[in-house]
């Protein structure tokens, strides 16, 4: 049990998927302008990543390894993720239209969110078992959501601040992200 707890703390804080492993930076820059879209994206990622992590691990363990098809991993995984995202999109369009509108272009882009695909690959490359996969996928997604929401809060404040003209836009976002990553380094002693 303590192993899983340690893994969770590590994935959320110490080895944060966004700030320490550099995965999922496009949506990080893209949807962190407003708190509600950031929260929606975070929710979408938690949902999709949990499902994708578990499903890809199952496929890898029972099909690809069994039939010696490991070289097809990349193609199979990305197709599973694409299908899942399509499903989530259809579901949100029907059930939660405001959220669907808010996420706009970035919902289909969850397909090309490196965080999702990256975690699925890490799961199988590190030979995790089923429980480890589940814990790692969920906590990585939470770590991603946490960083995204914090960033959205910072950027909402920054909208009213006076920023030097050449730093406007993505430049200042990246530098802010750098300092956020630095503060997350403070968790290094915990695990």
């Amino acid at each position, binding site marked *: 049990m303590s192993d899983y707890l340690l893994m969770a703390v590590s994935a959320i804080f110490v080895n944060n998927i966004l*700030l*320490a*492993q*550099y*995965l*999922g*930076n*496009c949506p*990080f*820059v*893209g949807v962190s302008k407003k708190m509600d879209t950031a929260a929606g994206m975070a929710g979408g990622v938690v949902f999709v990543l949990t499902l994708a992590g578990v499903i890809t691990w199952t496929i890898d363990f029972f099909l690809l390894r069994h039939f010696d098809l490991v*070289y*097809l*991993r*990349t*193609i199979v995984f*990305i*197709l599973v993720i*694409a299908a899942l995202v399509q499903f989530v999109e259809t579901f949100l369009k029907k059930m939660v239209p405001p959220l669907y509108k808010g996420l706009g272009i970035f919902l*289909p*882009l969850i*397909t*090309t*969110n*490196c965080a*999702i*695909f*990256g975690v699925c*690959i*890490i799961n199988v*490359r590190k030979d995790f078992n089923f429980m480890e996969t589940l814990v790692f996928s969920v906590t990585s997604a939470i770590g991603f959501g946490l960083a995204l929401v914090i960033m959205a809060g910072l950027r909402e404040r920054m909208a009213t601040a006076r920023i030097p*003209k*050449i*730093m*406007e*836009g*993505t*430049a*200042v*976002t*990246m*530098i*802010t*992200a*750098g*300092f956020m*990553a*630095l503060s997350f*380094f403070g968790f290094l002693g915990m695990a």
Partner: protein
Amino acid sequence: MSIVKEFTKGLWAEIPPFRFVLGLCPTLAVTKSVETGIGMGLMLTFVLVFSNILISLLRKIIPPSVRIACFIVVIATFVVIVELVSQAYAYPLYQKLGIFIPLIVVNCIVLGRAEAFASKNGVVASIADGLGMGIGYTISLTVLAAIRELFGAGTLYGIKIMGPSFEPFTFMVSAPGAFVCLGLILCTMNLFGKAKDM
């Protein structure tokens, strides 16, 4: 004339990821050293050019409603080729790049060019576009990697540049340094006009 324009736009006017802010993950992750930066740039160029060719050839056959899925399958195929070839012939580089080789599949630049360019234009123009964007990306990664490696480790492409009394500025090769360094480069690019916002 327009072919030349399609090629050169990737080198300055829309150079990824400094102007055309996409594909940030590998930009940050593999630029610890010039070697990995160039390696990733070349792999991406290969995937970009060949996926552009194939998608441009198939653009009248692919039904619009499932186009994204089709693009991804095409891209993934070329990524697997790159993955296997690098595993066979450049194993040290393959190990250093780690999960970032399969992650080329989800690099927004490749899908972005497929969607925005190759699915609407002819083969020759698509090759020019892919080649230009790929080379532009390689240049960007090399520049970023050179800065980070020089200050972070005192070397360039593994060769010692700084004198013996140089104290490595390890912040540059860590994750926060990657973000800050990219941010500063984007600032510099802003001096020459506004970047395309995502």
